[in-house]
Every structure is written in C-alpha cells, then in structure tokens.
C-alpha cells in the first residue's frame, strides 16, 4: 500500500480515518514501534503492585518487581496462552494463571508449575524463559512516566521525546516535594471515531467557540451568586474560558510542534485569570511551599509556564495546570477508548487536588457538559467521512506561517493553526513508510 498518496501538505485522505486495513497497518507500524505510555510509577509504589493496560490491542502488565524495578510484561500465560492477570490493578505475591495454576514473578519469570511430573523430558521448568510471561522488548521512564516499545530497536525514549520532555518537567516541577502521584480514580469514555481525532481536537484552538457553544452560553448566563461548594466555581470558569474571544486565540495563544508528532498548545492558561487559585488562600499556601522548597526565582520560573494540552503522539495528552492526563487507546478504526487520570502534587495543599478532581469532572467525565459535545463531533466526523463526494480532509490553517523555534521544532503563527495536525501526519507518514 502506498501510504504517501494519502497525505498531502494541506490535506489527508479520508481512508486514514476509516479504512480498517490502514488501521491494521497502524497497529503494526505505529503502535508496535513507537514508545507507548504504559503508566506512572506511582500506580505501583510497592513490590507486587501491578496495573494492566494494553499496547497495540495486546494486554500488558506494568508491575513492581521484588528488586524495586518497574517491569512491563505481556499478559499471557506461557503454558496455554490465557490472560493471567485479570483485575485492572492491585497487589499480588505472584501472578497465578486461572487455567492450570502456573505462577510467575512480577518480571514474568516462571516460578512454579503445579504437578510438574510429566514435564521431565520437556523444557518446561521454572526459570525457563520460553515458558515465562514474556517481557515487552523495551521499557524506559522519564521522571516517573513509564513508556514501552514492542520494537527491540529504534530511537531511545529520550530521543523520541526530545524537547517535549519540557512538558513532563512542567507537570512534575509544580510539586513542592518534587514528585507527583496518580490519584482520584479513572474517568473513562468511549467514542465512535478514529483515535487521531482526539489528538487533533485537544490542541485545536479553533473548535471551542463552535463545538462548545451551548456550555459557553450556559456558563456565561450563570448567576455567580448562586451557591457553589467549589465544583461550580471551577466548572463554570472553564466553560466560560472556552468562549474566549477570537483575538485571544489569535494574539495570546500559541502552538508548538516537535519531531515524532508531539505538540502543545501554549500561553493559554494563566493562573492569575483562570484558576480559583490565585485568589484562594490555598494557593498562597502552595506558593509558600514552592518557595520554601525551590526558592523565589525558580518558583516564578516554574509557575510562569502556561502550557495547555501537550500531545505525546500517539498515546497521551496531558496538562499541568489542573494535573490531568488522558490515555488514548484505539480499539478499531472507528472506536477509541480514553482514560482520564488525575495527579496529586506532593507537598501541595489538598484543596488543590480537590480542584483537580473538579476540573476532571468537567473535562474528562463521560457526562461532562463540555466533553459530550466533542464526542458528538467525533461521531459526526465518522459519519461524514463515509461519503464519497470528497476524499480529502483539510489541515490547511496556518500553512506556510510556521517559524522554527529554538528547540528545533516549529512554532505556529497562533493558537488557531492546524500545525499540530500537519505535524502528526508528518510523523504518521514516517512511521508508515518504514
């Protein structure tokens, strides 16, 4: 298949979003090759802790081994092939298969085979790697964010992330104690549409005024004097912010793009204007804790970063201001799961974490007055792209107006550019050509 024909400088072919055959190729050439986000180390703090997820539709387990190391293994018994670990997360002494009771260590080593008599003439015995739960080829982490690759070769995680590590730094540096942890449960949803749509949407400054018109207007008309325990404060403020005037998106918001398809929307969020934080006594406590831990100058520097969503292609999108992370898992060419995680800043007042939860309810919950209009849009794109009247989808806005940034990436003319989409398709073409 000639994938080159499907991507042009300012538009892409609809098959990229709805052809099952192309999706199969993506699983092989992108999801089985790229560094895929697996989880955060705080999800498995102690030996025996595990968290189950998937890579390229294949179940894997991230687990803390007895030596403290983070392991990622395929969730498949070395004996008859059953999925071994079944709860999504938990803690265990060993992994024991439900079928015949084979037992494994957290790194997948086969520990015990019940009724070993009869295996004497075979190679089946504890420790034999051919009968273990196989480790995935490569695992690496950056500041607690664990990634895995199903390909034994390719760029290192550091090379792959490149300058976008600064967005992960932005997440972690905001913790007075220098560490963040996953907390507060998982907000899940499923939409009927291709996996690329959510990445394209999350850094699309052009859509909120139109897609979110109903929640913007509802929030603008909200009487501020009505009782709120905090939920409405955060929620209404965010909905109103989606309705920022065009001049704001054109003059104050920027978009940056980097190799391997990564990008972020920047200069959108401003603690002074948007978060209850600055006027809130708990923010003063947070500020003090930050200054005590990091000094005045460094604190200013850290809190001066005003990035909104960062996309690490092709698996996560996250933002530091409200400490949210979305994991995007393709199910099929037109079905996608999204898992929303919250992070707690260690050393920060607990009130800030409550604001994190409130924000997640508004942006990531399946019944959110904001998200539901995005999901409807994805579904309509899926329907619209079945038509044969036009094979092409535009990504032309801001074309030819990008500047090279100091880190070797591209800086769009403004936050209304579709640079991030063109950038993802440049990466896509690279993966698919290999």
């Amino acid at each position, binding site marked *: 298949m000639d994938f080159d024909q499907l991507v042009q400088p300012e538009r892409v072919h609809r098959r990229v979003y709805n052809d099952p055959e192309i999706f199969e190729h993506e699983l092989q050439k992108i999801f089985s090759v790229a560094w895929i986000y697996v989880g955060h180390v705080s999800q498995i703090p102690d030996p025996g802790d595990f968290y189950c997820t998937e890579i390229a539709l294949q179940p894997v387990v991230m687990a803390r081994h007895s030596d403290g190391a983070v392991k990622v293994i395929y969730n498949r018994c070395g004996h008859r092939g059953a999925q071994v670990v079944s709860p999504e997360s938990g803690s265990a002494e060993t992994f024991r298969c439900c079928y015949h009771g084979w037992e494994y260590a957290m790194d997948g080593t086969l520990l015990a085979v019940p009724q070993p008599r009869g295996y004497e003439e075979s190679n089946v015995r504890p420790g034999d790697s051919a009968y273990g739960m196989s480790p995935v080829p490569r695992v690496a982490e950056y500041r607690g964010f664990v990634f895995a690759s199903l390909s034994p070769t390719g760029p290192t995680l550091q090379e792959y992330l490149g300058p976008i590590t600064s967005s992960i730094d932005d997440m972690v540096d905001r913790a007075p104690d220098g560490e963040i942890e996953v907390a507060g449960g998982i907000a899940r949803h499923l939409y009927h549409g291709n996996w690329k749509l959510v990445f394209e949407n999350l850094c699309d400054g052009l859509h909120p005024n139109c897609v979110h018109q109903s929640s913007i207007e509802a929030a603008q008309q909200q009487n501020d004097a009505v009782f709120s325990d905090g939920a*409405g404060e955060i929620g209404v403020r965010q909905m109103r912010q989606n309705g920022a005037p065009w001049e704001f998106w054109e003059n104050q918001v920027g978009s940056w793009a980097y190799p391997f398809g990564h990008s972020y929307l920047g200069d959108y969020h401003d603690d002074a204007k948007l978060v209850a934080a600055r006027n809130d006594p708990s923010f003063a406590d947070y500020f003090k804790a930050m200054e005590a831990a990091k000094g005045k100058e460094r604190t200013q520097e850290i809190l001066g970063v005003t990035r909104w969503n960062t996309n690490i292609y092709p698996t996560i999108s996250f933002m530091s201001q409200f400490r949210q992370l979305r994991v995007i898992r393709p199910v099929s060419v037109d079905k996608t799961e999204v898992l929303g995680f919250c992070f707690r800043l260690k050393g920060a007042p607990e009130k800030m974490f409550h604001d994190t939860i409130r924000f997640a309810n508004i942006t990531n919950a399946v019944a959110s007055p904001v998200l539901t209009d995005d999901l409807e849009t994805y579904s309509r794109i899926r329907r619209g792209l079945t038509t044969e009247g036009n094979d092409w989808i535009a990504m032309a806005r801001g074309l030819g107006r990008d500047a090279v940034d100091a880190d070797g990436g591209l800086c769009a003319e403004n936050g209304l550019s579709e640079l991030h989409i063109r950038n993802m398709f440049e990466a896509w073409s690279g993966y698919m050509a290999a």
Partner: protein
Amino acid sequence: MANQIDHDIRLIERFLFDEAGMLDERRFDEWLSLFSDNGWYWVPIEADQDNPFDTVSIIYDDRKLLETRVRRLNNTNIHAESPPPRTSRIVGNVVLHNVDQTSGNYDVSSRFQLVEFRGEKQRLFAGSTHHILRPVETGFVIEGKRVNLVNSEGMLEGITTIL
C-alpha cells in the same frame, strides 16, 4: 405508626414518579426547582465511592453547576442533543430508610431502569438512586441525589440524559 409509614411511602413514591416524569418529558427547569438552594446531584464512578471530592465522578454538580447543566440542556446549540434523546424510565423498589432526628430529612432509596433512544441508538441504563428529601408543605425538596449506575465503572459513551 404503620399507617403513617405507608402514607409517607405513598407521598415519596408520588414525588419520585413526578420527578421521573419531568425528566422524561424534558421539563428540566421544573426538575431543577425540586432542588434546595444548596442541593447537589451526584453520579459517582466507583460503586463504593464515599465522596465526590477525592475521586472523579460521572457527574458531581453543586447548585451552581446544576443550573448551568440544565441551562445547557435548554440551549438550542447543544450538538450532543441534536436530535434530543427520548427517554422512558421506571422507578421502583422505593424504601424509606431513615428520618433524620435533627434535620427531619428523609433518607430514601429506589431502583430505576431507563431506556434512552437517540438518533440511531438505543441504550439501557439501570441502577439505584439515593435521595435526601426535606419534607415541605408542598411535598419534598431534594437536598441531595446520588445515582449509582450498575456500569458506572465501564467504558461508556457520552451521556447528556439526566439520570
């Protein structure tokens, strides 16, 4: 005493059935008016979730957010409700668990099944509802409403219907 309880249960049932009717008939402003000035509406994600502050929820609305949610449902530019869903719900198994000695509030649980149809799709929701009801002259005021969906921890598609 038994007669009094039977009488109360009847009133509560009538109230819950009326509430269900308001939602199925999309009389959202009327539904909103059932809530007290600091009432809340909560659909947790985790089955045993004990509060809406430390864990994400499918919905957690204080009075302010609830007003905004309802106002959005009445907005003609709500894409997720274009076309709007039609719903039909059955409420039953109503139990009065407790009358709070201090506040006088009724602690009530019930079960529901709700069929939703929108566009090309029909969905079935089911679960239990917990109401905290304050008796007033005209009936009851909702101080709090918690809905436990049986599949709250599952992979759900967007929900605009009020449960």
